[in-house]
Structures are given as C-alpha cells and as structure tokens.
C-alpha cells in the first residue's frame, strides 16, 4: 500500500514580510466613527473617531457646546451610555435635552472648577469600559489653570481610550491634548440672528474647521433656538 501524498507546506517568503510584521507591530486600523449629528460636520469628517481623543476648541459662543450636545444626543439615541465631566459646572441639561439628549443615559460629574478633580474623574471613567462617549469640558476654566495639566496626562488618556469603543471629547478654549488628539476641530461663530419675541435669540451660524486632519473645507451649520 502506498502512503498518501503529504501536501507540502507553502514556503514562507521571509523577504516578502515587512520588518514591522516580524516585530509584531500592527499598523493602526481606521477607527469606527460616531456621527456628530450635525450633517455638515458629518459630511466633512464622517464623525468622531471611537477609541481616540477628539478635541473641540474655540472662544466662548463659538459652538463647542452645540457640538458636544449633538454628539451626546446621537450616542444616547443609540442607547449608548455617556459621561460628562463638567469641570466648570456649566452644563445645562435643559438645553441638552432640547438637542435630543436622553438624560437617563448621561452620567454627569460636576467638578465645581477643580481641574484636578476633573482629570481624576475622567481617568476613572476611562478605566470603566463600556461608555459610548466620555466628554471632558474645560470651556470656562482660565487658561492659567489648564496650563498646569502635565502633557503626560493626555498620553495616558490616549492609551486608556485606545482599545475602547468610547469617543473621548475634550472641550477647551485652546488645544490641550495637542498631538494626542486624533481629531481637532476649531470652532468659530459667524452670525447670530436676534428677534423681538420668544425666543429672543433665534439662531447662530457656526463654522467647524478641522485642524487635524487638516481639511481645506469648512463645515458650516446653523443652530436654532
């Protein structure tokens, strides 16, 4: 009886393998995106990357909180759990609910102006996996207080959020996470429309400029009362 032919194993062409593969490194795959809920911004960026830091900066009344509310509303509509670390205790649940946020899905941490508490709370939330959105709102804090945050914190946050499905949003007057952010939006206010009756402020036109990745186009949108 003749033995069954044994299939030969394919020759491994080591030359064809990249050095990165040999060392066990993997090139990062494109992250999933969570739509912001603002059609113009979604058309430009696709949404906020999951497992990455998204930074939204701009001066007061530039639309940072509008984007935050919209992202939270989108996540809560998909039954995702959200957390907001409100460093300056300025979150308004009423206007957020008007934007479509399901308040039952939000865990709100009021830090009363303490940067230290806000950073530690964000650290704890990032360690508790399962959130859809974790937002860190530094908008109304003075720049002098934010300058004292060591850059190492942002590297730590970037690592902590990396393998989670969470969108980590950072809102501030100026960039904080810098190189650790995968998406950086700079917000600007264009025009506000007032009226005599209620609501007294009818609408505001905003612009979102993508600083990272750099995009030539600008997302313009209108927020109405």
């Amino acid at each position, binding site marked *: 009886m003749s033995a069954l032919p044994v299939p030969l194993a394919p020759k491994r062409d080591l030359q064809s393998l990249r050095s990165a593969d040999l060392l066990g490194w993997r090139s990062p795959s494109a992250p999933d995106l969570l739509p912001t809920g603002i059609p113009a911004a979604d058309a430009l960026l696709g949404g906020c990357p999951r497992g990455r830091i998204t930074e939204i900066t701009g001066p007061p009344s530039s639309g940072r*909180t509008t984007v935050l509310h919209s992202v939270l509303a989108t996540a809560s509509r998909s039954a995702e759990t959200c957390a907001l670390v409100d460093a300056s205790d300025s979150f308004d649940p009423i206007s957020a609910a008007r934007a479509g946020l399901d308040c039952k899905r939000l*865990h709100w941490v009021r830090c009363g102006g303490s940067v230290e508490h806000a950073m530690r709370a964000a650290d704890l939330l990032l360690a508790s996996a399962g959130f859809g959105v974790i937002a860190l709102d530094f908008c109304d804090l003075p720049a002098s207080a934010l300058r004292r945050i060591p850059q190492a914190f942002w590297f730590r946050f970037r690592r902590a959020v990396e393998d989670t499905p969470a969108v980590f949003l950072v809102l501030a007057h100026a960039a904080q996470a810098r190189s650790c952010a995968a998406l950086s939006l700079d917000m600007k206010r264009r025009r506000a429309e*007032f009226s005599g009756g209620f609501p007294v402020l009818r609408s505001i036109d905003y612009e979102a400029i993508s600083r990272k990745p750099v995009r030539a186009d600008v997302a313009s949108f209108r927020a109405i009362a």
Partner: protein
Amino acid sequence: MFACIYCIDQPDGLARIANQFSPWVEIVSPGTVVFPVDGLRKLIGGPHQIASSIGKALFDAKLRRPPGIAIAPTPDTAILAARHLPGVTILAPGETSALGELPIESLPVGDELYDTLSRWGIRSLGDLARLPETGIAERLGAEALRWRALALGRIDRPLKPLAEPTRYERRTELDHPLDQLEPILFLLSRFLNELCDELKAQSLAAGVLLVTLEIEKLPSSSVKPVPLSNQPHVRTLRLPFPTRDVKFLLKLLQHDLEAHPPTRAITAVGLKIDCSAPRLLQGGLFVPQSPEPEKLELTLGKIRGLVGQEKAGTPELLDTWRPEGWRLTSSDHAAPKRDRKTALETGLTTKLAFRMFRPPRKVRVLVEAGMPRRVNSERVLEVAGPWRTSGDWWGEMMWDRDEWDVALSDLALYRLFLDRRTSSDDWFLEGSYD
C-alpha cells in the same frame, strides 16, 4: 394529630396563643388557627390534656364567647370540628361519628351541588359519607368526591405555617474600641458573607444596606453640651440594583465610610440588609455595550467620594418652566434599550446650546431707553428682549424676571436678566450661548 382553635373574639391574638404550643401555626382565616400537637404528648400528655391546656390558655385571654377547640388526625377535619361543634372535640383516627351529625351546609359546597344533594335527600355529612364513591365520581365529579373524603376525615394535607419574616441582620460588640476603617471592614466583610449566603439560599438579593456603628461614649467629665454626640453613626446605602456580590457590596461600604467616617472610635458594629428580588438582565445582540453595573457603581462611588455625594449622577428634568428645573438623581442601571420613537421623532435639526453660570454672575448694566447698552465694561453690540417670565409665586422657589439675549463686545452671546423680585436693579448674567 392537629389542633384547631376557632374563636372570633380574638382573631389577632390566636396565633400568639397557638405559638405557645407549636411554632408551626397555620392561620386558616381570621379567628381560625390550626397547628400540630404530636410533639406535645411527652410534654403535656394525651389529646385531652392538650385540649385542656389550650382551653386554659384561652381562658387566660379572657374571651367573652366560648371558643371551639378540636383535635383531629388531619388539619381539615380539625377545622371542620372546631368551627361547627361547640366546646372541645377530640376525634381519634378513623372516628368520624361526631362529624356525621353535622348538616351539609357546614361544607362550603357550591349552590348547584348543594341543590343536587338536597334533591337527593342528603342532609348531613353522615349521609354524604354513606354514598358510594364511584357513583359520586360518575354523577357529581371530583368536587363532590373531595367533600365526601372530608366528611369521612380522609383529606390529609401538609400544613401551611405562617412563616416568620427572616431578618438579615448581624451585630457584634467589640472588646476594644476601633478607630480605623480596615478592621471595621473586616467585620463587615464577615457579616456580608454570612448574610449573602442566607440571601442566596432564599433566592433574594440585597436592596438596602444599613450600617450602624456605635461610637465610644464620652466620659461624663468631658461631655460637651452637644446633644447628639453619643448617637450611633448610621449609614444607609440604597443600591441602584439588587445584588449579593460580597466584593462589590464591601467596596461600596468602604467608599461610603471613607467619605463619611465616624467621629470617634467604634464600640459595636451592626449591619442590616433589606432584601428584594434579584435582578434579571437579558442582554440583546444588537444593543450597544454599556458599562457593567457593578463596575460603574464602584466608579461613580469613587467619583462621588472625590467631588461630593450630590455632585455626580444622572440629570432628571422637572415638569416646570423654572430656570434650572432639573435635579440630579442616582444613576439608572437598567439594561440599555434602543428607543426607536425618540430616534425617529428627533430630527437632525441642530439646537442652540446654553452654558450656565452657577451661580449667576452679578453685573452692572447701563440702561438707555429701556434697553441694556453696557454690561460692566463691555458694550452691547446686539440685544433682543425683554422676555418676562415668572412662576412658583406661591412658594419659596418663586422667580420673576426680564430676560435679554445680548451680544457683547467680548464677542460672546449671553443671557442677561433683571431680577424683579427686589426693588433694586439686580442684573445677572445667567449663562452664555455656545
């Protein structure tokens, strides 16, 4: 053998009297209790002595009307005899002659069956007992068969005793006062292990934890005039979901006691658990991942310890037009469920977002022609208003104000309001649009 006491004079105290003879007491109806008396033979004597003892206990209770007492081989026979035969009745096994004289009305038979038995000339339980079993089964069905068995004293069933509500509670006195948290947690851990085992045996879970730490009494010479200084330190933890996970419960207690430590050393530790039905969760394939409730509650506990107990939670909107019409509640750990209605109803319209100043910033406002023209040092570039709102005038939360939306020269948009409750011009910035 079972004893039954029928006494409508003292329906509430009957169970207590019956408990003097047996821990297993079934309350059949108000005024009727039945309990086993087999174990009393050596203690009291035969059925006559037992009946005499029961009668003496009832006599001590000073009843106005004579109660019915019966001792019979089965609970239902004892109940029937106690209810319908006056005085004391003792039925030996197999003896049903005393029941045979009872009218058929003493059985709770239905109207239709009663009419049939009346037409047949059946007037007493003895008449019913003498009917052939097969014939009754063929003509009147299973119900009549059951009544016949009862008339013969043949229905036996297990007793349904009144269960004493179980208390999940532990307490220990300490030999020496403890002023550190770790040994107290060690004791609490032991209590939790024991209590959670008991809860598991009963298919229950912890709903509320009540920790009582008795603090060291101050010596009389050093007692300051503080009336509550020697009160025990009591902490109540209402769990957001029922659980019997000892590690999780211990961690929660640790966070709570770290945030609210007792004022002095501890002399006794007590733990009480209010139980509830365990949590049943059904996950869904298409439901997004959410944080594990235990882990989330621990995280929130740590955050509350950091920022304050009332500073973290889930906002709940109140049914009011009052500014800041919301309250912070403990987080809801219900299983996530997609809300299709909300998703469909909420369109893609972007809404204006508002940021609150807490508390509102008091400002100086220059008013010209009834409109604000300058806020502190900033010029008013654009303005709309006023929008007058008021409410809750019947309570302490009353508000009454005129609101303006203003664009100032610092390039931000604010909501400005004049508080009309006071006569002086109290202007405030409530927040900014962003």
